[in-house]
Each structure stands twice: as structure tokens, then as C-alpha cells.
């Protein structure tokens, strides 16, 4: 993982190889480490050939949905009639996720190189990297790196722009991000049309996550077969993935492991497990939007797209949030609901009203004023908020509520029965 700790021997270090190495941030330092070779190679290739290599590698989107990257690129119009755009989603705002931040902090050129390769593959002239507003340090580093790379003229005809967000979580949703770049309110758009048909400025657009694109130069350089070989479990999940582990572990941080790696080993071996004297209670494996896993589920979970689904959650963005036995799950879930209530864009009725209502009920339960029917009400509201809105923010609010009540019902009931001291909720 590089920074601030040394890599663990069980890690498969690809993207994080130069984390903590300040020299790799510079253009000179990056080229010394073999940077921009893949881009030079790609620019000589036919765009379709580049896409085919990525398709063959099995690389899937690292932003959360896990859509095959090469397939996504191939959705762009075959016959180019209008300008194409590439958007890079660096609006990493998912609670518990901080992998893209580290990529931009330590290996900005890896992202720029991957961006240029992807732009070439989809025949886009212009790429926008949409960076989360709060990321001041990564922004400065990316700006410097882009200036250096532009000065060295490595991108050919491709122009890369940095665009800074203004602090809205919803702008990480791909169509909201496009609206935001266009200068509009960051509201998700209804689909269809999908971005490949009408995206940024109404033109064919592909949008990829930072980690996805940072992996692309490695795939081109070392070959699709090598990347495909990085697989411990299901052959549909290949390569390496950065997991941002936070919460009750002794060594939180970013860990890069091969797809299919056991979550148990990540938490206990690499992160040192919970603090001494405590035991693991729960874990959110893929950023705040995915269902919560119990200790048993966590310890049996394999970290790839299919493995986490089999355990009852989703791989998501790879933001692993760990709770030990000192955690009050009701309070934790209230915090998540409150986050979504704050960040709902207010378009869809279910999300606008549902996230806020859910939060109020959670706060009421914590304050010791819960009603006996509150759990059923929460579950019903969550059901009504799932799968009915433009984007998945509403579903994301419902997921931890539903899984939380299902798996930690006792903690909720303790509050409802007045057996637990009420918590001041501010």
C-alpha cells in the first residue's frame, strides 16, 4: 500500500507501486519508471485494437457498478459523426472510499496516461477529469502533472481538462457529473439516452473511474493475458483492486489485492484486525451504499464482484468500513441515512422525502422515542425507495437500513424497549 505503511507481502502491487514515492509524481520521475510507454504504444494502435485488449483483459469498472470497461468503450458510435468525449470520474465522495485520492496524489501521471489511452480508444478529442471539490491536494498535484505532460506534448491530439466539483456527492453519478461539467445543477439525468448516445453536451460520451483508467496503461504494457491471470476466484473478476479500509482496524489504509482475495485476510492480516481486546462486529465492504455484512459473512467473503454479491452485499467502490463490538450500529446507520438525506438532489420524490423521513425515524429511535412500528415503517419506506428513482442514491440509503435491521435487529429493539441509553443526536 506504500503510504503511510509499507506494502504487505500479500498485496499485489500494481497501481499502488509508487504510493509514497514523491519522485513518481513528476513527469521525469514517471517516465523513468516506464510511464507514458503504454500511451505511445496505444497511439500507434487502432482504437478498436486498444478496446479489444481492454476487453480481453476482463477489466471492469472500479467506480462501483463493475461494468466491463472494454464493452463500455465499444458502445461508442462506430461511425464518428460528432465529437466524442471522455469523462473521468474523480469525484470520489462515497463514504469510506479513498483510493482515487491516493492514485491522484501519488501517481497523477498514471491517471493522465490511462485517460489519454481511453480517449484514443473511444476516439475522443477532449477528456474531462472531474475532481472532487474537497480534494485540494490531489487537485494541485493533478494540475502540476497535467502542465508537465502538456509541456512534454505526450497526448497527441487529445486535450485533457481538469474540472473541479463543488462538493456535491451526487455529482459522482455519471449523468449528474456531466450536467455539472456543463455548468448546470448536478442532477442525474433520466436514461435513456445513455451517455454513449448522448452524454456530455449531448454528444457521445464515455465515463470511467480513476482506478479503472489507472489500470489501463498496465494492461497495455503487460498484456491482457497477464491481467486476466490476476484472479483468485471467479474468472469474471480480474486484475487488482484497491481497498480503502477504515474504521476499527489497527492499520487502516489502501490495500491492493488480486480479485478474489479473502476479506478476512485483508482485515486481519493486512490491517491487523480490530484494536486489541475488541472483536469484529460488522463490515461494509463497498462504500456506504452497499448492504452491511455481519462478522460471519465478512469472514467468509471473497473480494470480487461475484464473491461479495454471494455474501449478500456488493463490491461497490471498495471502501471497506469496519465496525468492532464497540460500535452502535443504530447510530452508524443513522449517520449513513443522514448523509444521503443531505446529499439527495431533490429530483425524485421517493429520495427527496424518503431519505429525510428515514433519517428522522432513525434519530427518533436513537433519542429513545422510537415507536414499536418504526422498524416495519423503515423497512416499508426502504422498499418504496428502492428501484423507483432516476439514480441509485435512494437505493443506497435503503440498503444499509434494510441490511442493518435484518442483521442487527436486536440493537434496534434495545432502543425501542428503552433498554439502551438514548443517544444525543445533533
Amino acid at each position, binding site marked *: 500500500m506504500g503510504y503511510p505503511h509499507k506494502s504487505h507481502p500479500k498485496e499485489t502491487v500494481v497501481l499502488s507501486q509508487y504510493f509514497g514515492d514523491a519522485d513518481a509524481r513528476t513527469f521525469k520521475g514517471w517516465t523513468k519508471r516506464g510511464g507514458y510507454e503504454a500511451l505511445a504504444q496505444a497511439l500507434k494502435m487502432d482504437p478498436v485494437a486498444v478496446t479489444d485488449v481492454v476487453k480481453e483483459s476482463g477489466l471492469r469498472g472500479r467506480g462501483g457498478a463493475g461494468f466491463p470497461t472494454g464493452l463500455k468503450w465499444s458502445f461508442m458510435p462506430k461511425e464518428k459523426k460528432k465529437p466524442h468525449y471522455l469523462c473521468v470520474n474523480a469525484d470520489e465522495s462515497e463514504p469510506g472510499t479513498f483510493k482515487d485520492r491516493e492514485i491522484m496524489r501519488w501517481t497523477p501521471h498514471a491517471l493522465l496516461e490511462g485517460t489519454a489511452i481511453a480517449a484514443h480508444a473511444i476516439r475522443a478529442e477532449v477528456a474531462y477529469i472531474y475532481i472532487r471539490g474537497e480534494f485540494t491536494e490531489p487537485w494541485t498535484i493533478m494540475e502540476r502533472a497535467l502542465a508537465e505532460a502538456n509541456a512534454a506534448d505526450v497526448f497527441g491530439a487529445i486535450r485533457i481538462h481538469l474540472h473541479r466539483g463543488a462538493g*456535491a456527492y*451526487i455529482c459522482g453519478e455519471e449523468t449528474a457529473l456531466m450536467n455539472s461539467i456543463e455548468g448546470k*445543477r448536478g442532477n442525474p439525468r*433520466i436514461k435513456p439516452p445513455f451517455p454513449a448516445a448522448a452524454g456530455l453536451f449531448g454528444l457521445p460520451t464515455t465515463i470511467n473511474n480513476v482506478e479503472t483508467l489507472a489500470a489501463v496503461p498496465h494492461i497495455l504494457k503487460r498484456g491482457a493475458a497477464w491481467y486476466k491471470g490476476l484472479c483468485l476466484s471467479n474468472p469474471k473478476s480480474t486484475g487488482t483492486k484497491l481497498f480503502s479500509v477504515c474504521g476499527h482496524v489497527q492499520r487502516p489504509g489502501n490495500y491492493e489485492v488480486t480479485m478474489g482475495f479473502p476479506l478476512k485476510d485483508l482485515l486481519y492480516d493486512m490491517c491487523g484486525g480490530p484494536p486489541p481486546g475488541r472483536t469484529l462486529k460488522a463490515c461494509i465492504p463497498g462504500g456506504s451504499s452497499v448492504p452491511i455484512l455481519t462478522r460471519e459473512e465478512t469472514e467468509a467473503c471473497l473480494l470480487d464482484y461475484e464473491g461479495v454479491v454471494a455474501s449478500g452485499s456488493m463490491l461497490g467502490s471498495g471502501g471497506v468500513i469496519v465496525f468492532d463490538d464497540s460500535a452502535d450500529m443504530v447510530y452508524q446507520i443513522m449517520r449513513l441515512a443522514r448523509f444521503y*438525506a*443531505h*446529499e*439527495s*438532489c*431533490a*429530483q*425524485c*420524490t*421517493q429520495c*427527496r*422525502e*424518503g*431519505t*429525510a*423521513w428515514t433519517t*428522522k425515524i432513525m434519530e427518533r429511535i436513537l433519542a429513545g422515542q422510537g*415507536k414499536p*412500528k418504526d422498524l416495519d*415503517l423503515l423497512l416499508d419506506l426502504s422498499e*418504496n425507495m428502492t*428501484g*423507483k*428513482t*432516476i439514480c441509485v442514491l435512494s437505493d443506497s440509503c435503503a440498503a444499509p437500513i434494510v441490511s442493518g435491521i435484518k442483521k442487527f435487529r436486536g440493537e434496534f429493539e434495545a432502543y425501542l424497549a428503552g433498554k439502551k441509553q438514548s443517544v444525543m443526536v445533533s
Partner: protein
Amino acid sequence: MSDGLINLTIDGAPVSVPPGTLVIEAAKQAGVLVPHYCYHPGLPVAGVCRMCLVEIEKAPKLQIACATTVTEGMVVKTQAPAAKDARQSVLEFLLINHPLDCPICDQAGECELQDFVFQEGQPGTRYGEFAKRFNPVEDFGPDVLYVPNRCILCTRCVRFMEDVAKEPVLNVSERGDRAFIGIHPEARLDHPWAGNVVDLCPVGSLLSKDFLHKARAWELDKTASVCTGCSQGCNITLDTRDEVVVRVRPRPNLDINRYFICDHGRMHYRWMNRGDRIEAPLVRKDGALHATDWDEAFARVLAILRGASGKAVALVSPGASSEALAAAKRLLSGFTWTGAFQVVMGEEAPLAGVPNLALRAERAPNAKGAEQLGYTRDYAQALAAAKSAAVVLVLDEPDCPVETDGALIYAGTVLGEDAACRRADVVLPIANVAEEEGTFTNRDGRDQRYYQAKPAPGMAQPAAWVLGQLAQAMGLAEVQ
């Protein structure tokens, strides 16, 4: 498919619609109104209220009918249990922060929230004792008030100002359940077409100050009419309460005004309720006008017409019906005839997002109709000719500065203290546009019928009837 139509089934009924039709519009053809809030056929699709969720066979999730286009063989079930549950939950979400102040809300009775809650909602609330969102009423513009507590954030108003009026002064401000409709801090909602946001608002959130607390929706009688504000010929509904016109609203006509009317037209109704009307025919006796009955008035007019010959001049209002204008011409067809009208001119105010729709500079509804009947715009020349004419007929031009050495017949609605028409030999009381049925020809030559919304005062009768009766008594054939 040979006719190029898409065939689908909606709630068991087969429907054939052109490609590209939205499910919500196709459903209308099957007689099914899918409940909706943000969708409006005159605005771009937003798909945000999530009210029109329906079940479509083979689709993995419920789909919104307003943003789904029809496909061949599609099977839509608007009454599927899942769809009904989803819509019921949307209504519940919409109501948790709604004040339910229907008893004091102008929209009550014509409120889509009321209607659909009544149709599909559930009684009671699970929101409990939580405080509802509160924001103070805001003054948006000359005729628009915003009551944020009632707002369901369908964004119809925002989209109207942005995409139809092309003056984007409204937005959704804030996020989540704190959101409300915001107005640019330095702007007012004073676009000449801004009043449409009141009609577009499905709930009582955007209110007309003009109509504020004036009437309850269920007390209103509605009459199809045509706006008299300009020569565009927008279709309107006259809302009357106890025989008083209290509101003008647009009536959809895709060829003329789509779903909109301008604020000038919207406010152009108070004169229809004037109290200082001529209520009885007047005839000149001993140098003064005296009230009489129709028989005597008709006899006097006929005597004048039969006893005169030579030149006749008709000075008419371009707001008179084509029927009245034709009858006036017919009545004077025994003379060397001149007919003229004048049009008050104003500023043209187009609605940018709709082609060929504007508040026209020509502020009269039937100038084209008058022209087609042979009336000229040379009013000054006609006024001069009136001086020496044997008979002058003034039709509903109360301020006409007419002077004549011949006989003067005035058919009008009002008669001012110092009006030149006070010198008339006969004054015939006529109905105004709200009190009669008639036809206007708009600037593009489209003939449009309007209907009677309230009774005429006293003995006043439609001008077409009055002049027609006279022409018939004169034995004059209809002029072509």
C-alpha cells in the same frame, strides 16, 4: 405496422400510435390517465415526480410512463399491484410535508394532488408527529405568489421559464427535503407570459394574485372562448362565478397557443364585468335620449334607413364578431357603403419557445375578420366621410369621435358621459364577448368560435342579432 403505427396494449385495450409516442400519451388513447405531476405535454420531460410508474411486461423494473416510448407489442399495466403500490408510496411521500391546507387553498377542487390522492392514495399518515417543512410565502412577480409549503417540486414552472419562455429566472434551490423553487435574487417573474406557471402548477403552490381567494374552483362555470387581447386568437376558458368573469385560463390548442396564454390576455377580462352598461335601447326625443323598448328602437332605425339614401359609413370595433360585422354591412347594403375600423397597437411579446405565438402588437381579436368582410383600416378617411354621410353606424366604439350631419345609430355596450355617440339618434344596447356566441378570425385567417359565458345585462342583445333583425326587416339579402 403497414400504416407506420406502433401497436401496444394498455390495461388490456389495444392502442395504435405513431412511433416515438410516450406511454403516458398512448394511455390517453386507451382512455387511461396515468397519474402524473412533473409531466406536461407542453414541457420537456423531466421524469422526476415518479408518479407515473407503470408495469411493462418484460421490463425488469417499473417504468415511468412519461419517459418511456412505445414499442411494438408492448404490454402496459397501469393497474398492476406493484405499480399501484409505487404510486401510493409516492403520494405518501408527497404528503408528508404538504400542509393539507386545502380549505384555504385556491387550488382546491382543481388540484392534481387532491385528485390523485383521492383516486389512489391511502387514508391517514405514518409521518406522525414530525414537524412539516415550513418556508414563508414568497412574492415572485406582478401576479405570482409562491407558497413553498405546498410545493411538490415537479419543476414544471422551472422548465416553463427555462425552455418555453427562455428566461430562466426560476430554479430548484437547495437539496434533499430542504429544496424549494428559487428565483434569481435580482429578477422578478415578470415575463409577459409568466402567468402560465400558475396554470402549470399541479398544486396550489404558485398562485395568481389576481385570483387569490376570489372563488372556489367548484363554484366556477367554464366557457370556451377566444382571447380578445390581441390578434393571435389564443383559445381560452372564461371562468365565471355568479355571472361574473373571475378568471381567464388557456384552453389547449396545439395550432395556436398550445397550452399557454400571455399575461395581457389573462388580465384582459375586467371590462367584461363593467357595471355601467347600456341596459335598454335609447331613442332621441325632444333632443334627449330616452329609454324605450326594442320595438320602438327598431322602428326608429328602420325609419331612418328607409328615409335616407346616398352615403353610409360604418365605424366598427375590430373586437366585434364576424357575424355582427357582416350584419352591419348587410344592413347598410342599400347605401354607398364605407366600413372602417381602427386597432389599438401595443408592444409585441413573443413566447420564445413556441413558434408563431406572441402577444401581437395588434390588440384586437377580429381585425382580420373585419378586413375579410371589406372593412378598411383607413379610419381617418371614414371619419371624414361620416361628416357628410346620410347614415352613420357606430358599432361598439364608445370613444369614436364621430361627427355627422346625417343620422347616427350607435350599437354599443357602454356610453360615456362625453361620448360623441351621445349625439346618436338611436342607441342599441348590445352584449359583449362574454355574453354572446360568435366568431373571430385570427391574424392567420383561422375562424374560431366563442361561446356565451354569462347573460347580457338588461335588454342588451348580441350585435349580430340586433343588426340581423334590422336587416331582415329591411328585406336585405345576406351579402357575400
